[in-house]
């Protein structure tokens, strides 16, 4: 069943058109605006799944903006979608759809909601554009759109001092990162007079300037992905943003992580195997750099999560630890690029991107529903909520077991791949990873007993369950998590495997553009 060629462009154009129409639609009334936004996102998710079925069966598709075929000096902008980018697009579109359904009831009494939904649609367009584009400068433009939109969304509750300060910190760090990305793109353009990722990957001879551009790109994109030395913005912005916004922020952060992967595997693909002094090849160097950062971020994430008393900040530090697991899997995959267990590590890393996005999203939705019910996020004051909020407690247990990597659920399926492969590289890595995963379980069990169990105190005796739409969205994520946990090999064989093949087999990505001329 082949779909028209322009669906790739429509995947980004529809959220943009929806965002431009929302201010006009919201002039009618609020309910029609909410329905309009959910319809736009549902249509967009449908298109992404249609495109995914097309890509996973027929391989890479490209789409040129403004012309039918490719002239030799690639002048126009090119969208190039392979299994890895469609994998990230699936995660982003699911999470945004669920976040908007959740925020229907969660955001009812706030003002300025038409701007809120406009910014959510713009953030979706920014993320999908970042993930699907095949042009370096276009990647920078969409990176900037998603960072400005998410900064404004973080500072949504302007009467709370922390969220405005978190928004400012976020925009300073992400505009710094975006400027480094622009400088690196300018460096590459200055040398090779080309902006297309596939063409650049073909032209790069790994001169000293290319090394500077590589370092700048990795530092800037890892900074926006929340790696340890530059992770200070993550707990502040996840902690003080509305929970439905934080769910979308998780997928925005993963889009920057995708940027790191695209730069290392595709842009510098054939430079990875060049030998530098005393015959270490480049990928071993980069791999160990990422693995080291990953281990530090796991340790810092878990230890900081132990001492937090605010629910949102605790989950945010858990998310930092989970991003550390992703980078651990990917870094191990880069170190052992050619070998079998390197492939398993990469599979584990990429699979963990999907699993962790869903787990952290579910936990933030639970935190949001607790905030909705009790207007309180600090754990010391919460007590005995299990009696009245039955469903939320069940969802919290599912989220808790999943993020800690307990067997029946999806966290385990990807973490076992990471443990198994990192053990072959260096046993210490696997031991540290397992210990921190158990610590993470301890952190969330402490939260469970302090917030949900405990005596019934008068203040929360009349707490009632959250409205239906919030429960539905939490239920969707929980069912996806349980489904992936019970049948992981379905997901691995036909989504994760093609994605890691697409990353490693970068020459097919390049020949799709350069080969055709």
């Amino acid at each position, binding site marked *: 069943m082949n779909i028209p060629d322009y669906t790739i462009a429509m995947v980004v154009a529809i959220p943009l058109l929806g965002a431009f129409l929302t201010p006009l639609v919201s002039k009618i009334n609020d309910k029609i605006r909410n329905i309009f936004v959910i319809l736009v996102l549902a249509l967009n998710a449908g298109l992404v799944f249609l495109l995914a079925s097309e890509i996973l069966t027929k391989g890479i598709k490209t789409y040129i903006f403004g012309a039918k075929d490719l002239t030799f000096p690639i002048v126009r902008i090119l969208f190039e979608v392979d299994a890895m980018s469609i994998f990230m697009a699936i995660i982003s579109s699911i999470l945004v759809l669920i976040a908007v359904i959740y925020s229907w009831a969660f955001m009812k009494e706030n003002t300025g909601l038409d701007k809120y939904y406009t910014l959510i649609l713009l953030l979706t367009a920014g993320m999908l554009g970042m993930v699907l584009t095949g042009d370096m*400068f276009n990647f920078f433009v969409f990176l900037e759109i998603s960072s400005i939109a998410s*900064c404004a969304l973080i500072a949504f509750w302007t009467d709370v001092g922390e969220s405005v*300060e978190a928004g400012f910190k976020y925009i300073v760090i992400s505009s710094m990162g975006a400027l480094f990305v622009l400088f690196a793109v300018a460096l590459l353009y200055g040398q090779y007079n080309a902006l297309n990722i596939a063409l650049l990957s073909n032209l790069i001879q790994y001169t000293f300037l290319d090394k500077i551009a590589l370092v700048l790109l990795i530092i800037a994109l890892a900074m926006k992905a929340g790696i340890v030395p530059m992770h200070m913005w993550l707990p502040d912005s996840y902690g003080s943003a509305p929970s439905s916004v934080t769910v979308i922020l998780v997928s925005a952060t993963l889009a920057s992580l995708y940027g790191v992967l695209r730069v290392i595997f595709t842009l510098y693909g054939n430079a990875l195997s060049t030998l530098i002094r005393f015959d270490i090849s480049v990928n071993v160097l980069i791999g160990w750099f990422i693995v080291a950062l990953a281990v530090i971020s796991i340790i810092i994430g878990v230890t900081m999560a132990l001492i937090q008393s605010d629910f949102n900040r605790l989950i945010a530090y858990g998310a930092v630890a989970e991003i550390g697991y992703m980078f651990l899997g990917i870094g191990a995959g880069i170190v052992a690029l050619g070998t079998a267990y390197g492939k398993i590590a990469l599979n584990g890393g990429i699979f963990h991107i999907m699993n962790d996005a869903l787990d952290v999203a579910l936990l933030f939705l639970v935190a949001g529903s607790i905030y909705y019910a009790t207007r309180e996020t600090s754990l010391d004051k919460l007590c005995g909520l299990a009696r009245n909020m039955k469903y939320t407690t069940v969802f919290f247990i599912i989220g808790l077991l999943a993020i800690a990597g307990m067997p029946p659920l999806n966290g385990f399926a990807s973490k076992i791949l990471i443990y198994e492969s990192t053990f072959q590289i260096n046993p210490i890595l696997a031991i540290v990873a397992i210990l921190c995963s158990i610590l993470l379980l301890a952190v969330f069990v402490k939260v469970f007993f302090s917030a949900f169990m405990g005596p019934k105190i008068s203040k929360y005796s009349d707490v009632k369950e959250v409205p239906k739409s919030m429960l539905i969205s939490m239920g969707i994520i929980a069912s996806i998590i349980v489904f992936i946990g019970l049948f992981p090999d379905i997901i691995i064989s036909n989504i994760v495997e093609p994605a890691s093949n697409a990353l490693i087999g970068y020459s097919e990505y390049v020949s799709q553009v350069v080969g055709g001329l």
Partner: protein
Amino acid sequence: MIYNIPYIAVAALILLGLYALIFKRNLIKMVIGITLIESGVNLFLITLGYRKDSIAPIYTSSPGGTMAFPVPQALTLTSIVIGVAVLALMLSLVVHIYRHYATLDVSKIRRLKE
């Protein structure tokens, strides 16, 4: 032949901006620092597209001769408007931070972690 003086000016601008961003305490000075880095990167983009004694790539009553590159100029246009957008957002956040904490000093604002 002015060897690489424009690129040295670019490096100087960017380092000035970085100095203002990292070492200055006042919020407004940090925002100015980011704008400085922005203009440094824009200058770098523009100087990449210049050819020896070339004219602007516009054909209307042009004196003729080699033309400068049009693509970096288009990229710089986009980057300037992005700079304006980021600047507008940052300044509105600074106004709100001043309204909450009545100070622009970063060290005082970092709220005491209870």
